């Protein structure tokens, strides 16, 4: 039972992290390599403010969402949009955006490394009082419940928004065919900025919750989660929220089984071997749709 709780918590963290990345990649085609750095930098900024001000958890979560959204929207406005404007074709723009994202991530990483000297940072002890419960023999803390609750509620909300709201449907139409979507009157630039802000907001919330769950993080933490988030999206299928949910929990379950039953040395290798197998057997992921191209 304890292993199930651990897998659910890890999977929820992967999900919170991957959700924003998946939405941006699956709709506006932006694979944002600065996503991990935004996640970390939001927590870093809040740590700097919270150490003096003693912010409560709800305030931290709301501020985290706003700060993450602002950094992500600025990245879109100042880096990705100019790249898209200047690139001769969409394929080259995608590659240049990857490099641009790495550049943004490096700047955010360098600033936080300089300030913290890579010493771990977190929120003050009074931010949340940790309470633990015994549920069917497993030890569960209130932080576990908050993390799992946020992951499930946010993914359900994003999934509904993408499939049922007018803006979400417009966004998905960009993912299917950007040219036709523009001809139908969809403002791609405005939607792209909004999507990046949403992705950043989700990343900011994930940064706050991860810092609470771990107790502290370091500037390099975002990089480690970038790989996990990427893996969860590939496993579940790009562009589908349900796929990302499934990918995140499958990855966490595989890791938990390996840690519980082995010495843990091969966790990353075996988890990624599973993903490699998935890419060979079902390249679009478990719930990904087959791409149809018409000539």
């Amino acid at each position, binding site marked *: 039972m304890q292993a199930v709780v651990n897998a659910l918590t890890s999977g929820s963290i992967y999900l919170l992290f991957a959700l924003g990345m998946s939405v941006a990649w699956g709709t506006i085609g932006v694979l944002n390599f600065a996503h991990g750095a935004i996640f970390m930098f939001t927590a870093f900024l809040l740590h700097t403010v919270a150490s003096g001000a003693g912010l409560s958890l709800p305030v931290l979560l709301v501020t985290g969402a706003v700060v993450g959204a602002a950094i992500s929207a600025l990245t879109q406005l100042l880096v990705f949009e100019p790249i898209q404007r200047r690139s001769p074709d969409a394929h080259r723009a995608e590659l240049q955006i990857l490099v641009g994202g790495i550049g943004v991530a490096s700047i955010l990483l360098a600033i936080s490394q300089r300030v913290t000297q890579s*010493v*771990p940072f977190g929120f003050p002890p009074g931010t949340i009082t940790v309470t633990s419960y015994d549920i069917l023999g497993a030890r569960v803390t209130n932080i576990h419940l908050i993390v799992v609750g946020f992951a499930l509620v946010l993914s359900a909300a994003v999934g509904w928004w993408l499939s049922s709201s007018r803006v979400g449907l417009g966004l998905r139409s960009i993912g299917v065919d950007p040219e036709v979507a523009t001809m139908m009157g969809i403002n791609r630039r405005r939607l792209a900025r909004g999507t990046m802000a949403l992705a950043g907001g989700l990343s900011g919330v994930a940064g706050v919750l991860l810092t609470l769950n771990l107790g502290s993080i370091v500037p390099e933490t975002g990089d480690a989660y970038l790989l996990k988030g990427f893996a969860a999206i590939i496993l579940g299928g790009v562009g589908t929220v349900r796929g990302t949910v499934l990918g995140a929990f499958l990855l966490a379950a595989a890791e938990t089984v390996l840690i519980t039953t082995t010495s843990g040395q091969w966790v990353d290798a075996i988890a990624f071997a599973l993903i490699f197998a998935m890419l060979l057997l079902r390249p679009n992921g478990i719930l990904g749709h087959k791409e149809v191209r018409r000539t």
Partner: protein
Amino acid sequence: MLGKAFTRVVVLATTAALVVTTAACSDNPAPSASGDGGGGLPATVKILSIRQLTGPSSFAGTNGKKGMDLALDEIAAQKFLGDTTLEVDVKDSANSVQEAASFANQGVTDRSYSAIIGPEASAQATAVSAITQPAKMPTLYIQAGSDGVVTGDYTFRVTAPAASYFDIAGEYVKSKGITEAAVLYATDNPTLNQLGTKKIPELAAANGFTVTSSDSVASNAQDFTSFASKVTSSQAKAVFVMLIGPQTPVVITQLRRAGYQGEIIGMSAMGSGNLKPAGELAKGAVWPTDFTADQPAPSSQKFVEAYKAKYNGEVPNNYAAEGYDTMWFLARAIKEANSADRTAIQQGLAKVAAEGFDGAMGRLTFEGNDLRVEGVLAQWTGSGETVVQVNG
């Protein structure tokens, strides 16, 4: 035709300029390190210091530099080298092996440098040693605990290997009457891997406890919840966490939240303020270290007072102590050599190492070119660290 002739002239002129420049670089007749072994100290002895001032190991680089700066102040104030001044050029190698190697090449080629103080990370240090040892450039390191760093007469390490003073951790476990312990180590870090796979099993055999489980993770791992649950549900009453500094508050937080109440034993990475984010949860965690500000040796306390005076009451950590002792080791060697010549300084270093000296880390002796210290057991109080006496 004119175009071709012009091109030839430009190529020839450029080649000539390059040859002249290269020759000037390699034979810079700077008086401070003439390489002829001539006696007498020049007005200035130039040292190249390659530090990791940014990047993931910056906590070691910046604190080491602060210790070195304090030593430089004292050397100048005491006129330890008479009218000679030590001039230290600091370069930031950040997280790049290539940059460290490039700086080392620059230091070896520029004859005005008499010695190099090398980077902290083993990966960078091995690359630097591969350049400086064959070039007969005296090179001193702090940290850099892996093989391939001390490769010959010209390379010295002024941080004792953790395994050389780790026995105190085994004695601590024995003193608590513990018979079962778990181990978690970072598999991709040579020092931590060696402690986890060799040293701790040896300590277990020598101190009458059993290693019930031995788990490993990568040094970038952040989630230890499964390990914490595993240990909590086992019979282990002590857990050795051989992880890098930033991982230690996370693993302790997760162990305590999982309900683990036993002893937590780490290594020197738990110092330097790394346990601050874990606060009260980490209270009672212990780790063997080469330095803690509370250790009683008079030379250690003298360093602590001087450090606090220079840095507005800041308490020094092990990296600062290692940096301080490294600079004093080099200054003693230069005085012994009475020359800025590289070979003479190497001989001076060997002589000082053979005699040993008292420094921030207490009594310093060397085994070959590798430092040895007695070591102490430090304990986290919830807000700072103190020394623990082990009663066998």
